[in-house]
Structures are given as structure tokens and as C-alpha cells.
């Protein structure tokens, strides 16, 4: 095969084979330092590429329309996939899990807020906003985690896309209440509109519903776009996310050590909470890993938009720097494999 017109060989090569071959090749070259990278998925390599290009102030900038396009495909793909799997479940059996996941979404920001106020000495609005960001979830991180599990042949409950939708909203509500209190007149109607009809929820939930109604064979004809090129789209998306994360580095220097520490310790703690809940819910190791990752991830789309309008006195640089500049890279590069190891070690009996 010597052209670009055809997909690369061995569509059915087992991933284990894959890693074995790769290791073999790298050993022959005796490039030792690269050896630690042998488990790196190409999508992660693209994230690193974006990160380095950004840190070195490369000219590389993707037009915002491309970023939008990629994220639209990602959101719909994840929703569709989840919806298809949902269509195989009896809905009743999930109601319990859904309730627990919602409770997780309300609890996490409530746990984080006092830490931020007392240890971080942050102003009320800033603490509430950060708590909301970290109580909610990042779809990009979820996509990276699913891809990682797939690449490592770890099965998981595919319907977990539903949990992404469920976890997105509660932290926003809690965050606003923490910042404003119940007394003050927050325009909840307008806010609910803003949150539930934001791009993320509409596409994710829309994809879920379409996938759920259509079922496995129903979505097959649209699978070329939403499944066939999914991982390539994820690679480009992570390239862009690398560039965006790098752009936060400047702020990081400004806002000091606290953000860096918070951005790394919080996901570790949240992952433990999320993973424990997953184990209690009886999820598989893959499912536990995913729920841990969701708990560990911080929103950088839905929550910033909602907070900007509802709690404008919170400094958006603080939360974006932590969520995009620290936690996103940490989760993608270190967290996901770590949370998997944690799931195996703690709950893998």
C-alpha cells in the first residue's frame, strides 16, 4: 500500500499487538527516553503537539469556526453513542444510578467551596465560581478518557454519556447559590434557559435522544461522520486544546502557586470520590475510571459562560487558568491512566 487513498493496514490488529510492535520498534532504535511514551495514544501526542506549539508561541492558530465544528461533532458523537447504548438498557434500571450521579454533581461544589474560601482565601464570588467549574465536567476530558479505555481494551458502560449531561448542570446551580445566596433576586428563568439551551447540553442531550430513538442500526448510516472519523476529530480537537491550554500559562505565572496546586490536587480527590461512587453503583472498572475522570474534570465551556453572566464579579481568569491551564492537561496526560490504576487497585477485586 503506497497511497493516501486508503486507511492504514490492519483494521483488525488487536491493540495489544499494536503496543507490542511499537515497543519492539522503539527498542531497536534504542531511544530509551521515548520508551515511557509507548503507551501514548496519538490523540495525546496531538495534545502535546498543541501544548508545545503554544508554549513556543507558534503561529499555529485554528480558526474559531474549526474549533466549533470539531466540538459539535464530538458532542453529537458522544451523545449518539451514549443514546445507542441507552436504547439497549431498560430505563428503570438506570434511575437509581442517575439519582446518585446527580447527587454527586450537587455535592462536589459544596465540598470544594469551603476549601477555596478558607485555604485559598478567595473572595466569595471567586470561590463559588471555581467550585462550580470543578463540580461540573469537561466533555473533552470524557472523550479522551473513553478513547484511552478503548485503546487499552478496557470495556465500560457506554451509556455514561448520560452522566455527562447529568453532571453538567447541578454545580452551576450550587455555584450561583453559593455566590448570591437564596435571598437575592437571581433571574433563574433566564439562567435555566441559558444553561439548558446552551450549545453543549443541546448537542449532547440531542445526540443522546437521537441515538436512543434510532438504536444501533438506525444510526449506522450516519456513523461515517460521527464514529468513523471520531478519533481523528478528537486528535484535532486536542491539538487545539493544547494551544488553548498553553495560552493560559501566562496567567498561571501571575496567579501563582495556589492555582497550580488546586488544579492538581482537586482532581485527585474528586477522582477518588467519583470512583468510589462508581464502585458503589456497581460499575465495571472502565465505568469506575470514567466516573472518576468526570468527577476529576473541570468545565471550561458551559460553566464559564453561565458564571460570566450570573456571577460577573468572579474573575474568569482564575477558573479558566486552573481548568484549562492545569487540570485539563493534567487529566489528559497523567490523570486518566492514574484513575484507571486506582480503579483496578481499589475496586478491582
Amino acid at each position, binding site marked *: 500500500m503506497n497511497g493516501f487513498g486508503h486507511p492504514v493496514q490492519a483494521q483488525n490488529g488487536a491493540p495489544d499487538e499494536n503496543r507490542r510492535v511499537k515497543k519492539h520498534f522503539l527498542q531497536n532504535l534504542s531511544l530509551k527516553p521515548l520508551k515511557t511514551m509507548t503507551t501514548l495514544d496519538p490523540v495525546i501526542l496531538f495534545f502535546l503537539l498543541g501544548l508545545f506549539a503554544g508554549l513556543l508561541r507558534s503561529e499555529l492558530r485554528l480558526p474559531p469556526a474549526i*474549533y466549533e465544528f470539531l466540538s459539535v461533532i464530538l458532542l453529537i458523537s458522544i451523545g449518539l453513542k451514549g443514546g445507542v447504548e441507552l436504547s439497549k438498557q431498560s430505563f428503570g434500571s438506570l434511575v437509581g444510578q442517575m439519582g446518585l450521579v446527580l447527587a454527586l454533581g450537587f455535592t462536589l461544589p459544596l465540598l470544594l467551596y469551603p476549601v477555596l474560601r478558607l485555604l485559598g482565601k478567595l473572595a466569595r464570588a471567586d470561590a463559588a465560581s471555581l467550585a462550580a467549574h470543578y463540580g461540573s465536567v469537561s466533555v473533552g476530558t470524557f472523550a479522551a478518557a473513553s478513547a484511552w479505555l478503548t485503546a487499552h481494551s478496557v470495556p465500560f458502560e457506554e451509556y455514561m454519556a448520560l452522566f455527562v449531561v447529568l453532571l453538567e448542570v447541578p454545580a452551576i446551580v450550587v455555584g450561583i447559590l453559593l455566590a448570591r445566596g437564596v435571598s437575592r433576586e437571581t433571574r433563574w428563568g433566564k439562567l435555566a434557559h441559558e444553561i439548558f439551551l446552551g450549545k453543549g447540553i443541546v448537542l449532547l442531550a440531542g445526540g443522546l435522544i437521537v441515538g436512543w430513538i434510532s438504536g444501533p442500526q438506525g444510526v449506522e448510516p450516519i456513523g461515517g461522520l460521527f464514529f468513523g472519523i471520531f478519533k481523528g476529530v478528537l486528535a484535532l480537537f486536542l491539538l*487545539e486544546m493544547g494551544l*488553548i491550554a498553553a495560552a493560559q500559562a501566562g496567567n498561571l505565572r501571575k496567579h501563582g502557586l495556589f492555582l497550580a496546586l488546586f488544579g492538581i490536587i482537586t482532581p485527585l480527590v474528586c477522582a477518588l470520590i467519583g470512583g468510589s461512587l462508581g464502585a458503589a453503583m456497581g460499575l465495571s472498572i472502565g465505568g469506575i475510571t470514567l466516573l472518576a475522570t468526570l468527577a476529576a474534570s473541570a468545565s471550561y*465551556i458551559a460553566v*464559564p459562560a453561565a458564571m*460570566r453572566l450570573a456571577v460577573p464579579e468572579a474573575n474568569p481568569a482564575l477558573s479558566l487558568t486552573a481548568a484549562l491551564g492545569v487540570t485539563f492537561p493534567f487529566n489528559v496526560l497523567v490523570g486518566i491512566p492514574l484513575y484507571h490504576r486506582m480503579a483496578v487497585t481499589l475496586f478491582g477485586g
Partner: protein
Amino acid sequence: MATSHLRKLLTVITESALEKDLCSDLESLGAHGYTVTDARGKGHRGVREAAWDPSGNIRVEVVCTKETACAIAEHLKAKYYSNYAMILYLSDVEVLRPEKF
């Protein structure tokens, strides 16, 4: 062009996130229209890049009477200045059909 009339052009540069709210404010304060373009820039609140959607700016123009312009300016100052990246300036323009503005 004997029939030209003086009006004010108010230009607001601010975060894209405010577009919806800002435009409805403009209308309720008496502007008969507005024009929005996407922008990027730098100011006291740092670089705004437009690399991804909410990180960009918008540039909003309103042609209106002096009174309306001042009312809008005061309102924006009170409502948004302390919490949002925003600048605002006014200039004199001549228009052909004064009834439109």
C-alpha cells in the same frame, strides 16, 4: 448634501458573552438599530483572542441622538464597567435620514 443631520455614533467593545444582553439593553434604551462585528484585542483586562468563541470580543455600533447615546453610555458604565472587559467611545456623524436614528 444639504440635508445631512448630526447624530452620535456610540462604539462599544466588549466580551462576546454579553452580546445578547447588551443588544436588548440598547433596544430598551431607545436605539433604533445596531451593528455588531467580531473582534479581538487587548486592554486592561488582558488579551482577548477569539481563538475560541467566548474568549473573543464584539464591537457594537449604534447611531442615535445625543440623548440616547448618553443614556446608553451611562447605563453600560453602571451595569458592566466594573465586572466586564469593556470600552466605549462616542463620535459625531452626519446621517441622511434623521428619522431612522
